[in-house]
C-alpha cells in the first residue's frame, strides 16, 4: 500500500506529471539562483539569493520525495532528481534562460514566483492530502520569496536610466515564456475532476494575470503575452540549461551510487 494506491490510474499519472513539473521548476530555479552566491550586487543579496535558493531546493526535495512515494518504482528522490538526461527534465521554459544580469534574475524570480503562488493556491485545498499538507508549509515560506521579488522589481522599474533599461530588456526576453509555468499539463482535467487541483491551466493563467496586473500597470511594465505553442513549454530545453545540468549532475556522475 503506497500513497498513490487509492487513486485511479489516470489520476495517478496526472498527479505524477504535476509533481514532476513542480519539483523540476523548484530544482532548476534553485540551482540557477544559487549561482548568485558571492556575485550578487550587494552583500545582503548574496545572503538573500543563497537563502532563496536553499528554500527552493528544499521544496524540490520534498516534492521529489512525494513523487517517489507515488511512483513507487524503487527510485529514490535523488535518483529522480539527478539521473535523467537534460532532455528528460520537465521545468518551464521560463527557467531555461541563461543566468544573465541582475535585472534578468529579478524578472525571472518575479514572473516565476507569482505564477508559482497561483499554482500553490490552486492546490491549497487538494484532495491528495500529502500534497495539501506540503503546500500549506511551502506557502508560508514562499511569501518571503514574493516579497523579495516584488521589492526588487519595484526598485529596478522605478529607477530611471540603466536599472529600468536593463529590466525592460530582461522583461522582453523572459515575459514571452512566463506563461509556460502555468501551461497545460497532460491529463490535467483529471486533476480537477479528482479535486487534486481546483482548476485547470486556463483558469490558473487568468488568475495569475489578474493578480499581477495592478503591479505591472503601476510600474508601466507590459503584461506577459499568451504562451505560444503552449504544450511544448516544458520540453525542448536550451543550451543554457544543458550547461546548468552539467554543473548540478557533476558530483553525482563522478561516482555513481556514492553516498556521503
Amino acid at each position, binding site marked *: 500500500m503506497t500513497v498513490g494506491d487509492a487513486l485511479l490510474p489516470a489520476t495517478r499519472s496526472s498527479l505524477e506529471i504535476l509533481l514532476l513539473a513542480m519539483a523540476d521548476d523548484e530544482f532548476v530555479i534553485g540551482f540557477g539562483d544559487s549561482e548568485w552566491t558571492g556575485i550578487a550586487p550587494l552583500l545582503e543579496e548574496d545572503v*538573500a539569493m543563497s537563502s532563496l535558493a536553499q528554500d527552493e531546493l528544499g521544496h524540490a526535495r520534498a516534492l521529489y520525495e512525494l513523487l517517489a512515494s507515488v511512483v513507487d518504482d524503487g527510485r529514490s528522490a535523488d535518483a529522480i532528481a539527478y539521473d535523467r538526461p537534460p532532455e528528460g527534465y520537465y521545468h518551464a521554459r521560463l527557467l531555461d534562460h541563461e543566468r544573465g544580469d541582475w535585472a534578468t534574475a529579478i524578472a525571472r524570480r518575479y514572473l516565476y514566483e507569482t505564477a508559482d503562488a497561483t499554482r500553490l493556491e490552486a492546490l491549497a485545498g487538494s484532495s491528495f492530502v500529502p500534497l495539501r499538507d506540503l503546500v500549506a508549509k511551502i506557502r508560508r515560506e514562499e511569501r518571503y520569496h514574493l516579497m523579495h521579488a516584488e521589492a526588487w522589481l519595484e526598485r529596478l522599474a522605478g529607477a530611471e536610466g540603466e536599472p529600468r533599461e536593463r529590466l525592460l530588456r530582461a522583461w522582453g526576453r523572459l515575459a514571452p515564456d512566463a506563461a509556460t509555468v502555468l501551461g497545460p499539463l497532460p491529463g490535467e482535467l483529471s486533476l480537477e475532476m479528482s479535486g487534486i487541483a481546483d482548476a485547470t491551466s486556463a483558469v490558473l493563467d487568468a488568475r495569475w494575470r489578474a493578480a499581477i496586473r495592478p503591479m505591472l500597470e503601476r510600474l508601466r511594465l507590459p503584461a506577459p503575452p499568451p504562451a505560444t505553442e503552449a504544450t511544448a513549454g516544458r520540453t525542448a530545453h536550451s543550451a543554457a540549461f544543458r550547461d546548468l545540468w552539467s554543473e548540478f549532475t557533476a558530483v553525482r556522475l563522478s561516482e555513481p551510487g556514492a553516498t556521503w
Partner: protein
Amino acid sequence: MVTEPLAPPRAAGADEAAIWAALGDVHDPEIPTISIVDLGVVRSVELSAAAVRIELLPTFVGCPAIELIVAGVRDRVATLVPDRPVEVEISFAEPWTTERITPEGRDALRRSGFAPPLPASPPGAPIALTGAVPCPFCGSRRTVLENPFGPTACRSIRYCTDCRQPFEQFKTV
C-alpha cells in the same frame, strides 16, 4: 534480608513523559540555544510494545539540519528504550510555525541574543516586518529589519539603532 533483583535497564521511567523529557536534551544544531521540544519540532511521541514512534515537524521544508536532528532523536531515545526500535518520521501533517516555540524557548532565545519571532500572520496576509521587535541586548524597540534572509533559512537580520548592535531574529512563518 531480601535481595532486590536488579531492575531491567528500562523498567523505570520508560514512559512517554520520560521520552519527552529526554528529547529536551536534543538540539537543532543551527539553534543550539533551545531544545527541539521548546522549538516545537516534536509533534508526537507514541510508545507501544513494538516500537517508539516520534513525529517531527521541520522548521523549514529545506532545513538542512533535519537529518542530524533525526539522528540525535534516535540516539537519545535508544539509550532510554534500548529494547525496541525507534522510528522517527518527518511530517508535514501540520505546518511548523513560529507559534509552536514555547514561552520558555522564547526566553532562552532572547537571553542568547536571538530575538523571538513576531506573531504569525495567516498565509496571504502581509508579513509583519515593521512590528516593534525589542533588541535582545538593550531592550530598545527602535530596531530595523536589515534583511529578511539570514545565515540560515529560519533567521532574519535586524539592527538596533540605540545600542548599534546587529542581531538575529527567528523568521516568522
